[in-house]
């Protein structure tokens, strides 16, 4: 065989190896085929033989390589573990630092994913829509729908497979294992068809459930666990809803509640108003589109149908149209736009924290790599390849990253439920957010990424080994110091940015807490009571209950005033128009309506300005059913400087005019963020506006600390009616704080936490770098001391070095402050928040103080360097 055939031979040698075995094999083939006659066929046979032999040896070689790598890995692992055993502080420091960052990131990622990104658990979620009436002024809004309109649409719409509706209600639900006030929904029997899920146990509703009048109920998995302790025999058992027996026919799985935290479903029963009053908009429709139908097509069809309804019933529908939105968008809008902004902000905060942690770890790693520089260079000199060195560094990185990932996952598993419990009401779908596979995945990913970062940085310098061995240590460590300085400067900048954001949001909250609410906030307790409809079906009984409750609470030691109202103070939100009876031109379209007991004004601390307020006692109540008390703002806007007492007003809800009996002071009923509106007060449970409201907020104004007032109040309530639960117990101050925006508070709290950790890490970073720099310059310091520099001078020099580092970091942060202002814009009220430059000044002061503290120890150490030791070194 004359011609060379290097390709196949090379392949064979590559697979089998260049050793004597491989080469003799190649030689054998050459010899064998060389002895035969030349020709294309022979060539082909030779090639095939090479390939076959290579194929035979490939798995063998792969196995050998894997075995070699594994044994090298085990060796690396042992070596790294030994290294860490000799420097446990480094290992523990790195792992804990990283674990904190990973824990925060995994927690926030879990929440962001669960509330914003996770696909809805329904089959074909893209076909699910929420629709409802919208005003022509704001056709993209979504209001409740009228039952009669809904039925009309249901009959004619062709773009929908199913159209259903629900009405949210809360009720007291008691089962064998306890009673609770739970969120429920009154639904049309086909409601569950929309979502296409199967029940966990039992069945969904059938039309007969509505028409027969049978009292049946479907409960959520959560309610099943709470009421039945998760027992299998719950189907067919009886629970009480507002003290009326209902039979459990089904249990809905967790997924069913993805569109809202509902714990029980009952079939809706249309009442006389529903079937006669087209203007009464009280149900929330949902639907499933026909396959292949787009939202636009559905919206177009419903709007056309609604326009026809508008022509038929112009009085009720003329100003209205209809809107259809994907169910995902509707769910995502829970908590408002600020909720999304909050999640983005704290998400960014968590990532910054992780970055700071990572920087700290890599900075520590660089310092350590510097200490072991000779060891690494020796390995290179002895023939360790770059790959081998990287593998060694990666093993070290993994020894930090993997435990940190595990610890981070543990932190997240503990923090996610905590954050959800504490701040769940500030973001959508919070009840389905749970620690799970995605959280572990994020933690694991972050741990591995960290390991690679550590490995990459530890082997940063790729100079020839011999050069490295020959040169003085200082050249190399100067390069390493430069990298570390850059890293720590970044760390300072990131911490400062985080602090800036946190301080801006916290500053707003502080400013809001200083806003005068118009009423004293201290020494007042508030709670909600919900009266079961079955026992309190009429205003008379509600009035008697509230009167009796007020009398008994008043008798408690230290209680000064007791009052009740239909809605919580500072929550705003129930309004209508008011006009002067004898001058209809004087009309105010947006007036807050509130029903109160006589004790409400003194209990909340609203002063009487003119006339009188409602008289105490039930006897007076009936006479006052057509009398109202108005706020000063309302009096001013309707009557100007003239007296309002004795004037007659027309309200949106009652035909006969009502008489003004008194004018009281204003308070900020919308919380500190918004100005209060003019308000009209009706007599609770006597005026028809709020005659039947089963829920009331009670305000108890007291003396002293009121430490045991909650217990005493609870006892009084239990004594009065043990089936009435006491809810949402908090001080008036807390109520006011909450009204300042819970998402703002959540963002500030979490950001402050992150900032605290980031600053702590940052100070460790500064300390590490300065200490390293001092260590590196021991000789220089010694010489300086020898030529007459004072220890104080040396210490000062070190401090200045640390401050320089901080100053650069802060300068970078100042550049980033523009971005921060935009990021927190939705939480910050420009007129209330301290100016950005003042916050920035605060940030500079805090960070500089921390930096100086971090530099003190190395500076002192440098100043105390014994001259003789250094010179001896």
């Amino acid at each position, binding site marked *: 065989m004359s011609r060379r055939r290097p390709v196949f031979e090379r392949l064979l040698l590559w697979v089998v190896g260049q050793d*004597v075995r491989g080469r*003799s094999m190649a030689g*054998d083939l050459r010899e064998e085929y*060389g002895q035969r006659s030349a020709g294309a066929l022979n060539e082909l046979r030779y090639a095939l033989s090479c390939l076959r032999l290579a*194929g*035979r*040896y490939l798995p063998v070689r792969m196995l050998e390589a894997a075995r070699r790598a594994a044994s090298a890995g085990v060796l690396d692992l042992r070596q790294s573990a030994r290294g860490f055993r000799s420097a446990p502080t480094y290992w523990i420091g790195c792992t804990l630092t990283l674990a904190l960052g990973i824990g925060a990131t995994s927690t926030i990622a879990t929440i962001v994913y669960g509330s914003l990104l996770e696909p809805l658990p329904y089959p074909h979620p893209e076909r699910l829509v929420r629709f409802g009436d919208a005003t022509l002024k704001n056709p993209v809004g979504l209001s409740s729908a009228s039952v009669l309109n809904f039925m009309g649409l249901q009959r004619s719409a062709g773009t929908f497979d199913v159209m259903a509706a629900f009405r949210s209600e809360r009720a007291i639900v008691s089962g064998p294992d306890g009673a609770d006030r739970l969120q429920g929904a009154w639904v049309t029997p086909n409601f569950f068809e929309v979502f296409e899920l199967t029940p966990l146990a039992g069945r969904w509703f059938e039309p007969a459930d509505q028409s027969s009048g049978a009292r049946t109920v479907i409960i959520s998995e959560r309610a099943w666990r709470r009421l039945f302790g998760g027992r299998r025999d719950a189907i067919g058992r009886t629970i009480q809803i507002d003290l009326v027996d209902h039979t459990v026919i089904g249990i809905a799985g967790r997924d069913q509640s993805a569109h809202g935290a509902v714990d029980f479903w009952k079939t809706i029963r249309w009442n006389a108003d529903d079937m006669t009053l087209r203007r009464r908009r009280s149900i929330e429709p949902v639907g499933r589109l026909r396959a292949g139908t787009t939202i636009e097509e559905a919206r177009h069809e419903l709007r056309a149908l609604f326009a026809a309804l508008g022509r038929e019933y112009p009085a009720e529908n003329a100003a209205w149209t209809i809107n259809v939105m994907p169910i995902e968008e509707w769910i995502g809008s829970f908590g408002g736009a600020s909720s999304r902004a909050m999640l983005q902000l704290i998400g960014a905060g968590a990532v910054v924290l992780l970055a700071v942690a990572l920087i700290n770890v890599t900075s520590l790693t660089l310092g350590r790599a510097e200490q072991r520089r000779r060891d690494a260079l020796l390995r290179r000199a002895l023939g360790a390849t770059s790959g081998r060195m990287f593998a060694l560094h990666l093993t070290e990185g993994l020894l930090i990253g993997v435990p940190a990932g595990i610890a981070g996952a543990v932190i997240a598993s503990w923090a996610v439920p905590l954050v959800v419990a504490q701040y769940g009401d500030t973001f959508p779908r919070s009840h389905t957010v749970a620690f799970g596979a995605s959280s572990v995945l994020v933690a694991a990913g972050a741990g591995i990424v960290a390991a690679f970062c550590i490995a990459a940085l530890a082997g940063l310098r790729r100079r020839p080994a011999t050069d490295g061995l020959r040169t003085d240590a200082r050249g190399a460590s100067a390069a390493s110091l430069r990298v570390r300085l850059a890293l720590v400067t970044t760390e300072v900048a990131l911490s400062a940015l985080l602090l800036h954001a946190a301080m801006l949001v916290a500053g707003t909250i502080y400013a809001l807490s200083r806003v005068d609410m118009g009423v004293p906030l201290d020494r007042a307790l508030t709670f909600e009571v919900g009266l079961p409809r079955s026992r309190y079906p009429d205003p008379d009984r509600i009035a008697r209950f509230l009167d009796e409750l007020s009398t008994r609470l008043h008798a408690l030691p230290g209680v000064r005033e007791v009052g009740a109202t239909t809605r919580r103070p500072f929550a705003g939100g129930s309004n209508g128009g008011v006009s002067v009876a004898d001058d209809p031109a004087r009309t105010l379209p947006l007036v807050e309506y509130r029903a109160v007991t006589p004790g409400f004004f003194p209990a909340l601390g609203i002063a009487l300005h003119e006339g009188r307020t409602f008289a105490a006692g039930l006897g007076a109540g009936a006479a006052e059913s057509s009398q109202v008390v108005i706020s000063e703002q309302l009096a001013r806007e309707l009557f100007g400087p003239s007296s309002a007492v004795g004037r007659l007003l027309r309200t949106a809800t009652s035909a006969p005019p009502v008489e003004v009996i008194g004018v009281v002071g204003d308070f900020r009923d919308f919380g500190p963020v918004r100005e209060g509106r003019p308000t009209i007060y009706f007599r609770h449970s006597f005026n028809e506006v709020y005659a039947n409201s089963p829920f009331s907020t009670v305000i108890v104004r007291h003396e002293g600390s009121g430490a045991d007032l909650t217990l005493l109040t609870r006892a009084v309530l239990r004594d009065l009616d043990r089936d009435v639960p006491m809810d949402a117990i908090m001080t008036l101050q807390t109520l006011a704080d909450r009204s300042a925006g819970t998402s703002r508070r959540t963002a500030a709290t979490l950001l402050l936490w992150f900032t605290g950790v980031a600053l702590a890490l940052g100070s460790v970073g500064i300390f590490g770098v300065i200490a390293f720099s001092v260590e590196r310059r021991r000789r220089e310091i010694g010489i300086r001391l020898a030529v007459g520099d004072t220890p104080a001078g040396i210490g000062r020099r070190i401090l200045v070095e640390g401050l320089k580092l901080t100053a650069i970091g802060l300068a970078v942060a100042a550049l980033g402050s523009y971005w921060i202002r935009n990021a927190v814009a939705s939480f910050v009220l420009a007129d209330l928040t301290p100016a950005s430059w003042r916050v920035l000044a605060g940030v500079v002061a805090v960070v500089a103080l921390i930096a100086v503290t971090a530099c003190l120890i190395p500076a002192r150490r440098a100043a105390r360097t014994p001259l003789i030791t250094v010179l001896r070194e």
Partner: protein
Amino acid sequence: MPRSAFLGEWEQLVLLAILRQRDSAYVIGLRAHLSAVMGRTPSRGALYRTLDRLEEKGYIRGIEEDASSDRGGHPRRRFVVTRSGIAALKASRQALLHLWKGVEEVLE
């Protein structure tokens, strides 16, 4: 006798072939010899892997010989059976003879 000392059929054949080739036990010759004895040509891969295995067990030893031009400059390996290889062969032979004893009539 340890279990590992027993040889597989293919290992015995290769060892015996090396012994029979005496001082010229090269792969090409071995393959030709085995082919003549067995009536079919064994695959190169099987032969090389068996040689590797026997070498790992210490039953044979490969001796590197000078490269020649007809081999493209690649060396040649000659195999010799080691003492432990001989011992393993003997043990296998003994075991087989023992098992053969008394069953010839049945097989005839």
